[in-house]
């Protein structure tokens, strides 16, 4: 574990959804790598934490999974985003953008010199 940025669960779920939406069906390893790559190696996740998040998303119906065989002949569970998942994603994206925008405005405030 490198001392980069901590990822909390809610955000991780959003990243997973976004990744699956962009890349189509993926297995756990693929998702984890993709997240690392996208963050430009700024973000390193403990790959093991991914699985409970995947399960939770599946329980919510946001993603679905099935067993398959990968290019190099490994058995793996492939996850794909569902209609419900896309709806979640749109809603959360909008909310996220809004939040960052608001926070961004506050960050842009100039301090008064004493």
């Amino acid at each position, binding site marked *: 574990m490198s001392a980069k940025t901590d990822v909390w669960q809610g955000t991780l779920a959003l990243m997973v959804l976004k990744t699956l939406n962009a890349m189509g069906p993926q297995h756990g390893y693929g998702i984890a790598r993709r997240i690392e790559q996208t963050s430009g190696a700024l973000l390193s996740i403990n790959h093991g934490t991914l699985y409970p998040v995947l399960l939770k998303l599946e329980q919510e119906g946001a993603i679905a999974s099935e067993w398959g065989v990968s290019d190099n002949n490994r*058995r793996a569970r492939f996850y794909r985003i569902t209609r419900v998942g896309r709806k979640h994603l749109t809603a959360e994206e909008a909310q996220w953008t809004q939040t960052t925008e608001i926070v961004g405005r506050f960050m842009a405030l100039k301090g008064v010199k004493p």
Partner: protein
Amino acid sequence: VRRAIRRGWTRLIGTFLRRHTDRDLAQEIESHIEWLADEDIRRGLPPDAAYRRARIRFGSVESAKERYRDQRGLPTLEILVHDLRHAIRGIRRNPAFTVVAVLSLAIGIGVNTAIFSLVDAVLLRPLAYEDPNRVFVARELDPQLFGERLLGVNPVHAREWAARCPSVEDVGLTQRANVQLTDAGEPVSVAGARITHNLLALLGVEPIRGRGFRADEEQAGNHHVAILSETLWRSRFDADPSVVGRTILIDGESHEVVGIVAASFRVPSSGANRRDEIFRPLVIPDDEIGRMMGNYNYFALVRVKSGAIAGQALSEMNVVQARFPKSSGVTTDLKAVLIPLHEFVTGASRLGLWTLSAAVGAVLLIVCVNLANLLLSRAASRSRETAIRAALGASRRRLFRQALTESLLLAVIGGVFGVLLAGWIIELFLIAMPLELPRIDQVRVDISVLAFASGLTILTGLIFGALPAWRLTRDDPQEALRAGSHTVTQGRRTLRLRESLIGLEVAVSTGLLIMAGLLGSSLVRLLHVDKGFDHDRVLTVDLSLAGSKYAKVERREQFLDRLLANAGAIPGVEAAAIVTHLPTRGETWNDPIYLEGAPRAHKHTVNNRYASPEYFRVMNIAVRQGRSFEESDRGRGVAVLSERAAKILWPGDPNPVGRLFMGEDDTVKTLVGIVADVRASLQNDPPPTAYYPYWQRVPDGVTLVVRNSDLTAAAEGVRAVLRREDAELPIPAIRSMEDVVNRSVEQRRFQMGIMSIFAASALLVSSLGIYGVVSYSVARRRNELGVRLALGASRSRLLGLVIRQGMKPVVVGLLAGVAVALLVSRTIRNLLFEVQPSDPMTIAGVTIVLLVVGILACLIPARRAAATDAVAALRFQ
């Protein structure tokens, strides 16, 4: 929220279906790690190092698996399932305990559920009338003639209330009388009522077939119409729809059936479940329409207008009431009283039912306490197991939950059996018990009863489980583990807890025993009270001479004359007589008697009876002075008074026989004799009573009483005589007078019996509890006892020591129980007869019984203690 529900649902499913199994996850993780390793291998790392690095990057596999598992199912549910499995194992390991627990719980919950279903149907459920809160029973008060007694209603008054009180919507009247149905088969006498045409509408009841009565059918001449109950319609007319419109014979006269009312319909009555089978229009006779005062002979229901207040209606009625005495030149403070319908119907049953509920509640409490006690003794033997589990990291909450799961499981099993038992008990109540309760036919196990039973079950499980569970988990595991070894005496705290539970059990048992004792001695005193008559060897038959055949007085008189002659001639019959109302059937026919020319204030209300000359001989009622009436008295007014009645009319005269007074029919009577006072109901003092010969006002309802040494033979003879006289006369059951007396105390006998059963079972359970605790303490102190013996203590000393200690909580509980009983028993004062709620004999008796039972329960383990072999006990270490 929907997401959360969905998640919950799939997790619930996941618990059972195991779609994402551990194997799947392991496979997934393995692939994942291989991929991670591949990256490094491609970069040239040796596989060993690559795998190590991959594992590090993946993070803790076990932690991932664990969190995955938590996310997968419902941990709470899984723990519950686990606890349940554990509980079932525990229950099966201890079959004896389980049987005792389930059985006692089933009985406790079953009896409580059954009694609740009674209370619910009789007291709690709203009456089956439309908007019953606006319906009241009206009574009148005429202080001058009748003092504080609540009277029926004069029909003229009822009419005026309806007409003149703005808050009164309607007033309906009824009068009850048994009627004879001579149509279609065997003649029968059934309960009937005459009702005003508005009564059904007033109660919001629609006939299920046909129509109600019309106003014009209350006019004499139009009144030959009838409404049948559904029950009669089904049983006697095979539910034939064409009965409506048909003509049937009631009391020997043709009546057209115009409607049928539902079987559940009742004219409200107090404390009983009387169902009328035939309704006819109430015709007020012409001579009564002119009577402004007196004639308080009708039962009146008042419906108050919606939005109006009962108090307002009552004050309006009392304004009207004030006019009647004035208009007939009387001065009396005539008042009306309104009784809420629910109170009127259920009032008489309330105390008895609540007492019963309290008693069964107490029984269940004892069951709980006893189970808690048993569980505590098991907890002692299981404290090692618990300690080990605690040492291995089980949290206290978790252990507590597990212990509670076991008791709840027991409670649920007991509850299920309890509900089955309740259904059976209710059946028994309905068939076999002499319960004169309103609405008793509506008792059943329904949703509210089931809800009560479930709630009670959970509560029971919590009550008897919480204390042992708490005790079990409070132990310091280290101490508990050490205590398991032989060198340290264990569980002093547990013992103290168990002793206080014993105290509680004994206290509740004491209370129940005292209640049962009070009710029991009431019953005994009631049965041995001086009734004023002798019920041995007397047969009774109720006869009703209704209908056109007996409409003429001469016909009735002829019939009665012949009946008396023939019944007296039955071989073996000592004497036969008739009377209008048997003793023990209550105070009836209350009308004033007075001295001629006396002011109205000196009229005295007495019970009036018409009887035949032999009546006093048949009933063995002592003639104190003068004589009974005789055949030679025909043609002149004579009467016999009871001692009290004579004393009221002539307070100073020791022998007023031969003096004159005015009878209830306002004609002059010569007093020919004075007889002993007779109780009209066992629990009340004998009322002043006047007796007149039957030929002075030939009644249409009489009871034939026959004194005979052989009751069965006499019954046959009486039946034959009646058949010969009138083959169409319905003959109800022929009863012995003893039976009649017993029936009047059936309700008490039932209360007393059920209370005794409860008290006895409470005592039994408590004595088992005492035994259990003392045995436990003896086993615990085996070493100590051995040492004492070795040091020279005598065996009797040991015996005394154990008993003294075992009896300590019993005595404390006993004192507490007596104190509580003294406080509580005052509330059942009305159920008692000639016994004070603080009756010292009862309390002393109960104390002795409990002390003896307590000592016996201690004795067995105490003897075991005394028989301790010092050497063996010490070697046991």
